[in-house]
């Protein structure tokens, strides 16, 4: 009897490899966003802490209070420091 439906193994090769590749690229992006978020959050937290410190500043008071965390912000997009997806490139 002649085949009148696409065989299962054809469906597999038609759908699975390219879908896997697409899903991997989405996962890669989400992972990159997740690893970039703590740096972004620190930046935002510092900004609002600075802002609150400035608003509550009284004459004679040191604006760099202990409430403002001195977090180091590592190189990000546009900062001039080159970093590939959060990982250092190593060779050899």
């Amino acid at each position: 009897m002649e085949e009148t439906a696409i065989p299962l193994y054809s469906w597999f090769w038609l759908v699975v490899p390219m879908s896997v590749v697409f899903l991997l690229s989405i996962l890669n992006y989400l992972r990159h966003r997740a690893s970039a978020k703590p740096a972004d959050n620190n930046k935002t937290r510092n900004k609002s802490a600075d802002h609150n410190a400035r608003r509550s500043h009284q004459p004679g008071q040191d604006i760099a209070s202990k409430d403002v965390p001195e977090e180091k912000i590592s190189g990000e997009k546009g900062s001039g420091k080159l970093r590939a997806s959060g990982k250092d490139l190593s060779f050899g």
Partner: protein
Amino acid sequence: MNTAAVVTFILYLCALIAFGILFYRFSETLSDYILGGRKLKSGVAALSAGASDMSGWLLLGLPGAVYAAGLNQIWIAIGLSIGAFLNWQFVAARLRTITEKTGNAITLPDYLERRFEDKTRVLRIVTATVILLFFALYTASGLVAGAKLFESSFGWGYETALLAGAAVIVVYTFLGGFMAVSWTDFFQGILMFLALITAPIMLVFFFENWETLVAGVAEVDAAYLNVYHEMTLIGILSLLAWGLGYFGQPHILARFMAIDSPASVPKAQMIGIGWMVFALFGAVFVGFTGIAYFADSPLPDPEFVFLVMVQELFNPWLAGILLAAILSAVMSTVDSQLLVCSSAIAEDFYKGLFRPSAKHRELVWVGRISVVAVALVALVIAWNPEAMVLELVAWAWAGFGASFGPVILFSLFWKRMTLQGALAGVITGAVTVLVWYHLEGGWFDLYEILPGFLFSAGAIYVFSMWSEPPSRSVTDKMDGT
């Protein structure tokens, strides 16, 4: 071709030229003209890479192949999507980083010369020459494809169609350089994507349901449903091996070098791969439905399956837009190749060898004039429609993939690689492709890119280990990137 389609198409061409004018003032330095000043956003980089990569093959070649042979053509789509993914994954960010660190190299020959501190300039000359030779042929093939489309869609003579297509591409590329090319690629990529999503949806409605469509295909030939039909191991490996070409295609690697930051790469990868996967599915589906649709009146030329279906099924305005999508596919590749050739002439030969102290303005104009010069050479090659240039595309893809791919990969990952290894890799890859192409029978039926890639990689390793280790200044360049 009716008035609606002609009007839509003319508006599309005017929009392309407008991009050229818009970005004319942007190009103050050669880096601006060739790489957009490395300011390309992730979405534009992704779609520009995809549209530059996929020429008329995506809307003509692949649907035509599926229409003629069935689902066994899926192997090339699988190979390409895996290759493109790996290229974004392992090459994009590193290449972006390293080309900027090694003296802001804006072309591949320039990068390779700086990477290996080649005082002899041989590596620059060899790689720039390979780029010019292969891309002149590749560009000619694009112009032939575009001319044949114009010819069949508008009833123009071949020469008129050739000149008209070339004129539009040259104008916006000449004026606007990389940014015009990338942004036109971006919109062309959207158009191509929409065409390949819309057409299948309309076709499903035409056939009422999926089962009716599949039954229609099976009635023509049930073997068309089988991905293994008439495929041997060598055949499957050859189609999958197309993916290896990505690592060495200068016009795609240029998008990686131009992206605004390595941190933008994951987003660009997701957009680019998403675009590619859906577009490939759409192209395969169009060819597949064509088997059932044209069951009673087979097409004389399988490659016109998409074009004819669009004209028969769609509203004339929509047909005009979809025709523009097909021409977009061709133009988006030709403009990128023209620009890479221009960069080889302006940066690698003119500035690199003859006028290292040339001013920015002078270099930008040398780049512009080079665009016109290369287009003229490509026109001469393409003038004869029987010149069989289209057959050379597979050969050019293999040539770049085999001669540049391993060299780029090793240069990004292996400190011990030397100048001698790089030269050996380029020459071995190119020679293997040239020789293997002419051999037949048994394993020689394998697509030449696979042995070319492997032999090139072997030559890089052997010659690097045989030669003196690279100097400290070369390896220090790679530290901490």
